[in-house]
């Protein structure tokens, strides 16, 4: 069992932050890697990116968006509760070197995974410009945390409720017009990553994306996470999650991500109904 040491809602009922006691994972975690967890014996194995880690305290920080049954059920966890299974670090770490000028783009919940990457890139000597964006002000988080790990932070909201109105791609375009970066790292919802890639392709800037395909084992055993990259089938869990965004078949990824939409909806509906019957307790 793995203990939840801290749980806060970054955006009420939408975004949760968890600090999990997992010293062995913390000891080995590197920017860009993820974990897979299972809440209990009936639970699904879901992947979440390592948003931060503390090797001394032996903790791993996760930020999860309530997308369906499992992440909603996780939202009920409190400090002191435990989860059954927690495995990681998984995936290849993000390749870090001194590229020169790097832009990280984090959209929505994707802000969290850009955090350790921006930090590692800056430590490697890069000029790191971080763009973070959310649909609206309430969904924006980690502004201060991000500011600490990059050279320059740019913030935007789709609806203009905070700082400025615009998509992360609008801001990215301005940054690229100012001076062409050597690398872009984009993490967020699939349509956002796709839009970033379409833009950076025009500018000829290499772009790394972190893919969130559906997974089961996370060890290369099931092939469920396969995506087409550069015309070849790759497994996100062992070959990725980072890939060259200009090579990714986003359309296929989107189709495969929707594979279980009906069942997922059914599962969430049943879960919320059950919770309501029990007065909100599970």
């Amino acid at each position, binding site marked *: 069992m793995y203990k939840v040491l801290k749980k806060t809602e970054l955006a009420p009922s939408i975004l949760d932050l968890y600090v999990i006691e997992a010293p*062995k*994972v913390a000891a*080995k975690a590197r920017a860009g890697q993820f974990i897979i967890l*299972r809440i209990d014996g*009936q*639970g*699904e*194995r879901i992947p979440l990116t390592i948003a931060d880690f503390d090797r001394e305290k032996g903790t791993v920080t996760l930020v999860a968006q309530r997308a369906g*049954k*499992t992440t909603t059920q996780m939202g009920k966890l409190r400090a002191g509760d435990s989860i*059954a*299974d*927690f*495995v*990681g*670090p*998984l995936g290849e770490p993000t390749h870090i070197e001194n590229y020169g000028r790097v832009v990280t783009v984090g959209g929505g919940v994707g802000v969290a995974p850009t955090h350790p990457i921006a930090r590692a890139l800056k430590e490697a000597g890069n000029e790191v410009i971080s763009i973070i964006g959310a649909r609206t002000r309430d969904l924006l988080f980690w502004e201060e945390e991000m500011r600490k790990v990059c050279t320059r932070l740019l913030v935007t909201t789709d609806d203009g409720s905070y700082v400025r109105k615009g998509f992360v791609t609008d801001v990215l375009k301005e940054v690229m017009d100012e001076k062409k970066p050597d690398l872009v790292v984009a993490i967020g919802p699939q349509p956002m990553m796709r839009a970033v890639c379409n833009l950076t392709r025009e500018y000829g800037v290499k772009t790394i994306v972190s893919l969130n395909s559906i997974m*089961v*084992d*996370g*060890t*290369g*055993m*099931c*092939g*469920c996470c*396969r*995506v*087409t990259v550069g015309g070849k*089938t790759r497994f996100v869990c*062992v070959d990725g999650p980072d890939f060259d965004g200009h090579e990714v078949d986003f359309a*296929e990824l989107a*189709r*495969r991500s*929707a*594979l*279980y939409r009906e*069942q*997922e909806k*059914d*599962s969430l509906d*049943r879960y919320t109904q059950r919770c309501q019957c029990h007065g909100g307790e599970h």
Partner: protein
Amino acid sequence: MAEEKKKKVIIHNKTPMPAQDPVARSRNFQEVALGYTEEDARLEAGRCLQCKNEPCRQGCPVEVNIPAFIKLIQEGDLDGAIARIKENNPLPAVCGRVCPQESQCEKYCTLGAKHDPVGIGRLERFVADRELGLGVTLPGKAASTGKKVAVVGSGPSGLTCASDLAKLGHAVTVFEALHVAGGVLMYGIPEFRLPKRVVQAEVENVKKLGVEIQVNSVIGRIDTVDELLERYDAVYLGTGAGLPYFMDIPGENACGVYSANEFLTRTNLMKAYLFPECDTPIRVGSRVAVLGGGNVAMDAARTALRLGASESWIVYRRSEAELPARHEEYEHAREEGVKFSFLTAPTRILEDDKGWVTGMECLRCELGEPDASGRRSPVTVCGSEFVLPVDVVVVAIGQGPNPLVPRTTKGLALTKRGNIVADESGATSKPGVYAGGDVVTGAATVILAAGAGKAAARSIHRHLTGATA
């Protein structure tokens, strides 16, 4: 009178195995073969001729002393019988169920020439189940040697190596990537063929010997083999052949195409058949095609029926005679209503505008000359295209070794296919590192994997103490 030998009356047919009715069982996940009663076992044991030259024993990869254990059953000493089996085979309740007996022990049974061979596997299962039911008496353990061994992977190979090393007095830790121990026995082979309680009972027995099992530990990520070598005196790699192969035909990433590993893992390990009580979903479709002809393919096709498919097809390039699956599984699949399209090679998976599978384009084949494996290879027939209308495709054409450990371990010699090179004692090119089971041989059998674990335990013991086990 002196020369009058006592003539034994030979019963020609194997004592039948009680089994669930095919129609009922094709829709549930309970075990198909129900196991012998004590009376069945006595009757079947009585058929054995106690051949002095023990041909059956030579057919068993771990040389279980078959005539001896059967004799003990004849004499009613069931405790003695299981003890005899366990001298060679650490997982009799598993092997009795899943060994391909018709190509191993039973193939060489003297009776088999004219009649049914003795049901060796069934007898093995009977005494093993009886012992599991009564509670296993733990074998004696040697005094502690002070040596520590890390075992990577908790499939039959890793579990066997761990339990033998523990009996020899070594401190053993098993690292398993998944959240439960058992390897393919847990995630691959379905409940209806190998109940998970049987596997977990075997895992518990290994734990009772003092072996520590750390689940959720992916070696190559949380620790590399080189890091393990800093803390352990030897490492055994039993990581199996978990990497699914695909056909490399157009449409293979369409929605509704599964590897057999994914299809079976969702069902067995994650219990998707209990969705939504269990959270992991699976899409079954109404017409399912499974590509391949081995045990894995049979398991997937039979699972599809149980999950509610109205039609489940096995699509195989060669003919019935070349099917590599256990004969009993093929028979069971047929009885349950699995359909077979032999001499058929898929060329393309068709999808609708949303990316969902709508059918599979195939070519008919003919059998040509025998290939390197001695099997006649299929040759496609020009112009024989046809479409099999299916909405789910399960690819079960084989698995390779998972590259994670090889990729992260320095100085480990590999074959062209990526298997770890190890000699008969399990020694690899890297000092202190041993390997065995599917990761060395390629996808094979439970008993071969267990046998390799045993051999490696002996040689690790020799390496650590200088003594022979």
